[in-house]
């Protein structure tokens, strides 16, 4: 293979991913005068962000004036069980309102309050109605707004183009090797900076709200290039995925259902969440049905326990099912029908209404839904500097779901969409600063480039080998059985062993057919990423010997103070082995610690912060 014959593009910066984070980052790069390229596995506007439903969190204070960045910050830290990067949580809470308003400037049309401002809805873990939203299709509004704005900013979009490998020159980013889905041809991007915005890796599990794109490519590519990953043990199981029929198992049911008044029941008709209120949240959670039902109209009523954080609700549903109190198909009942008039349900949750009507033949305005936990989100990912989004690899940046740090041990709903626009922008600022400081242009050697392509073509050229789809299923089986919503050290070790065995088998994957639009080939290529990410999750989960947020160890119940002092960081060792270590956390600035630990009364009364 002659490198000079490969189609080549030159950019100052290449953004990998065209979801909310990638688009916002690209817009910023372009605004700062950089020649900006964007690649994505799917067509423009189809990235995962399009599926987000409930809303994006920002303390605009349009619905409740008492809200402000400090309370949003405090909620985020508490939701993340204090493992979040303090500085990221601070930047996010402070900047989210401006980023949301900016979307309006670019044409977004959010739902309105009676006095004509952006409306905000309640969501789990958020003290006040805080989620700017458009019915239950907020992600569509976000991605379309960024897309329609972005196409006029001189950005070069390369659609259905997949990154295979990051190319380095003396440890610095020098380019990206990729291929076109449509033709199967290879392509080379020469660039001094890369922004990873590839989203999560939920496809390592079989019950997930994630699409085929979520194979952890960003984390895996960065890892291979020497970047550190962090917090991977924290994989969020969303409490409410569909459970029936089997073909839609895992498809998301937005938390907006509970935010708008929906309640959870077991097969005895009990509102079981009252039995699962953690101590930390007890002072702020209603403990009787009477009180919960008064919320939110009565300002003195505390929030219903259905709106506890996702980790808590997901574990509660699982416990009810295990105790034999589950719904017929192994979930819990989510009832909005008896709580709100049919018209209001259809208006506020139109896509949920259609989703159930068309996929499950259930009318949610008359019948409760059946729901259960589904793998939804990666809190962990690529480790970045809080202010610049740069990784430990010079020239490599990351933002959005594939980056770690903002959400700690558990993400609050709505904090992802705001994460994308806040840190997408900051990544653009970071890249511009990096490029203005760098003097020489790095060049990758030809050997790296040809090696990347040789590996990919091997899968097609092999005479016989394993079916990539079945290999992917085997991997999902390992993760779902041994790295599930509750974990034990023993099972995690089994997972690592089984993944090792799969890795060996994966050397021999075979995709029949040609390279042109060949999903079997793409599947085989993503198995490699999934194996890296799966192993990193299992290993990180193994060394965190406690239960915190989304990570639950049956053999180590409860949070342990000493475990609050470190994050788990994973990187590739010199011999190619995966190294996992505990990295001590820095003490927070006093001001932030005071805000995070303050009582609500003190914060609202302006006595702290």
């Amino acid at each position, binding site marked *: 293979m002659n490198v000079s014959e490969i189609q080549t593009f030159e950019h100052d910066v290449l953004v990998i991913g065209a979801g909310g984070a990638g688009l916002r980052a690209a817009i910023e790069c372009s605004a700062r005068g950089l020649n900006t390229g964007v690649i994505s596995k*799917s*067509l423009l506007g189809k990235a995962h962000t*399009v599926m987000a439903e409930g809303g994006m969190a920002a303390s605009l204070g349009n619905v409740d004036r008492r809200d402000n960045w400090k309370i949003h910050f405090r909620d985020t830290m508490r939701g993340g069980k204090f493992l979040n990067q303090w500085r990221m949580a601070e930047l996010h809470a402070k900047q989210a309102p401006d980023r949301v308003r900016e979307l309006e400037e670019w*044409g977004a*049309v959010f739902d309105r309050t009676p006095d*004509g401002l952006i409306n905000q809805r309640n969501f789990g873990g958020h003290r006040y109605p805080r989620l700017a939203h458009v019915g239950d299709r907020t992600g569509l509004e976000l991605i379309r707004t960024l897309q329609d704005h972005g196409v006029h900013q001189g950005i070069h979009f390369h659609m259905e183009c997949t990154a295979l490998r990051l190319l380095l020159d003396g440890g610095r980013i020098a380019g990206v090797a990729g291929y076109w889905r449509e033709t199967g041809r290879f392509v080379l991007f020469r660039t001094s900076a890369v922004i990873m915005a590839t989203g999560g890796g939920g496809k390592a599990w079989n019950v997930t709200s994630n699409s085929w794109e979520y194979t952890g490519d960003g984390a895996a590519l960065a890892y291979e290039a020497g970047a550190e990953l962090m917090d991977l043990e924290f994989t969020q199981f969303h409490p409410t995925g569909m459970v029936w029929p089997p073909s839609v198992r895992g498809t998301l049911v937005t938390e907006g259902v509970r935010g708008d008044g929906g309640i959870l029941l077991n097969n005895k008709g009990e509102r079981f969440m009252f039995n699962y209120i953690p101590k930390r949240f007890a002072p702020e959670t209603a403990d009787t049905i009477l009180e919960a039902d008064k919320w939110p109209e009565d300002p003195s009523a505390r929030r219903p326990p259905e709106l506890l954080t996702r980790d808590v609700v997901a574990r509660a549903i699982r416990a009810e099912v295990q105790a034999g109190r589950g719904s017929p198909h192994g979930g819990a009942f989510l009832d909005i029908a008896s709580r709100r008039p049919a018209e209001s349900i259809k208006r506020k949750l139109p*896509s949920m209404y259609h*989703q159930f009507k068309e996929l499950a033949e259930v009318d949610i305005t008359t019948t409760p839904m059946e729901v259960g936990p589904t793998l939804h989100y990666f809190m962990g990912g690529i480790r970045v500097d809080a202010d610049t989004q740069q990784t430990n690899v010079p020239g490599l940046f990351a933002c959005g779901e594939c980056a770690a740090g903002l959400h700690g041990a558990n993400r609050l709903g709505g904090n992802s969409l705001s994460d994308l626009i806040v840190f997408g922008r900051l990544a653009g600022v970071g890249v511009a600063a990096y490029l203005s400081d760098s003097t020489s242009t790095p060049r990758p050697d030809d050997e790296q480039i040809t090696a990347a392509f040789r590996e990919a073509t091997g899968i097609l050229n092999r005479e016989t080998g394993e079916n990539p789809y079945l290999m992917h299923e085997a991997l999902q089986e390992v993760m779902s059985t041994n790295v599930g919503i509750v974990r034990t050290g023993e099972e995690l070790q089994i997972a690592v062993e089984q993944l090792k065995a799969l890795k060996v088998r994966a050397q021999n994957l075979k995709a029949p057919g040609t390279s042109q639009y060949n*999903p079997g080939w793409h*599947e085989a290529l993503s198995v490699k990423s999934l194996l890296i990410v799966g192993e990193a999750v299992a290993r990180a989960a193994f060394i965190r010997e406690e239960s915190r947020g989304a990570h639950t160890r049956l053999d180590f119940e409860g949070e342990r103070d000493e475990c609050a002092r470190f994050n788990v960081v994973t990187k590739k060792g010199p011999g190619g082995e995966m190294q996992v270590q505990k990295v001590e956390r820095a003490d927070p600035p006093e001001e932030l610690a005071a805000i995070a630990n303050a009582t609500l009364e003190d914060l609202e009364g302006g006595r702290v912060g």
Partner: protein
Amino acid sequence: MSTRTFKIWRGDSAGGEFHQYDAEVDEGMVVLDVLHRIQALQANDLAIRWNCKAGKCGSCSMEINGRPSLACMTRMNTFGPDEVITVQPLKAFPVIKDLTCDVSWNYEQNKRIAPFKPKPRGRDGEHRMYQQDVDRVQEFRKCIECFLCQDVCHVVRDRGRKDAFVGPRFMVRLASLEMHPLDDDDRIPEIKKEYGSGMCNITKCCTDTCPEHINITDNGIIPLKERVVDRYYDPLARLARLFAGRRVRTKTRTEEQSG
């Protein structure tokens, strides 16, 4: 579980033909599930686009038994027990391979449309818009860009007038800008001249096929056509504009009724 027969078009721009597959179908499955099963077990390289599997992304558009549909929202139990299910790519666009086609023309149309141009913010730094004024725009913004409406529109599909008409999807997009309470651009001349609003003869096929139930024709295209007529053929409106020295938003009848 039952066995069902699928006929799937397989080929590329050079040509192709229908291949027959028998597949096991479980309760609750949609067409996309069965296609995935066929892909995993019998035809690893079968090209399909999909993402959300819940009717939210508009990727899985194809023609199922002749009807432009989303494969992820077409339930298997909507077919007769022995009905053979025929699946082929959208006809309005050049095929890439199997069930995927080249929809880049649509992205080019979108780029031609001038970007949103916001009015200045109010003195309090806010943009005020009321729900009743944005309801219509929000209806248009539900569009998931599945391009099924483009596929059924005879102007785009049969008459091949892609040069003269942007198609229903982009009429919806233009309507969402033209009726946006904050948009400060005059879009009527371009809607007439550039984007070909006159080409549509209101067959409503697009509206009938839209999976998001957007009332493309009645709420989008017809009001735009009316605005074009008001502007170009209504002498009063012209005079008023001359005196005002700027654009006068000629309200459509439906808008007046809804207040």
